């Protein structure tokens, strides 16, 4: 009796049909193929080894990082907009800062955090509450496609004065 291990679709097979200098290489890079039976030499390489095989793991890390960024921004946002209680002059002076080019770029990039966290959040809800675990990789692809489309679209809205000035 022979036992044949068939890897799941999208997962790394138990052994890869690659020459030994690739499979057994000691250098690690995110672009490199999966290297079994090789002790990684730093914590970062361990992390990359553990995470790069699964797109969902990267989504998990990105969801955390964008979430932390958005909470930090939420505190700044609430604190900054409390200038509304000090009247028109205080608000307009503050908005002079926030409509300068560096801040507009920052606001646009903030949108990237928002869109990834929001769309990946929908994916998490579908996986947790529905049957999304069966097609979560396709959902993640959709997250990236819709997210990039919205962020690129917002670029043309936010910078419409600079882009389309007469």
């Amino acid at each position, binding site marked *: 009796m022979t036992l044949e291990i068939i890897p799941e679709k999208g997962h790394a097979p138990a052994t890869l049909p690659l020459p030994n200098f690739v499979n057994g290489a000691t250098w690690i890079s995110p672009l490199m193929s999966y290297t079994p039976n090789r002790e990684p030499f730093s914590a970062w390489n361990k992390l990359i080894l553990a995470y790069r095989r699964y797109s969902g793991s990267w989504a998990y890390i990105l969801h955390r990082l964008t979430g932390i960024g958005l909470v930090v921004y939420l505190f700044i946002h609430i604190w900054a907009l409390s200038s509304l209680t000090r009247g028109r002059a205080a608000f307009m002076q503050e908005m002079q800062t926030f409509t300068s080019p560096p801040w507009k770029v920052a606001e646009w990039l903030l949108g990237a955090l928002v869109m990834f966290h929001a769309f990946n959040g929908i994916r998490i809800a579908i996986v947790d509450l529905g049957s999304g675990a069966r097609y979560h990789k396709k959902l993640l692809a959709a997250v990236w496609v819709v997210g990039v489309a919205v962020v690129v679209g917002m670029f043309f*809205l936010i910078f419409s004065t600079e882009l389309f000035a007469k």
Partner: protein
Amino acid sequence: MALDVQAAPVLDPEKVGSNRLVRSYSRARRSGAPAWWLQRVTGLALVVLTVGHYILMHYNPVSGHDYGETASRLASPWFKGIYLGFITIGMYHGLQGIWNIVRDYKLKPAVGLTIFGIIVVAGIIFVGVGWNTILTFDPTKP
């Protein structure tokens, strides 16, 4: 695979913390299911609110940065009501998420309780600041 997977050490609950409150906030002693459910529900609400808010404030260069437009929006009680809720559930969802990340690490009970206290106090203060901004906004102030 080269990664070592270590079994989690079994801790004696009596040695971790003598105080029941300290223990309950430092280790997974409660199910957490209500918080998990609320995180999904508030998250789905925030998808609409946050993406809508971001587009509303940026669909043209002045919509989110002009005093007149801000004042006209804040004249509507519907807008005020929605934004009071937005601030509250946004802050709840965000800080619940931070606490969720903190709980993934093994902390001493006192450290965990201190972080929990900071999260709760900061949340209450900043929800208060946000509500104060909306409720005491006076468009006639120069």
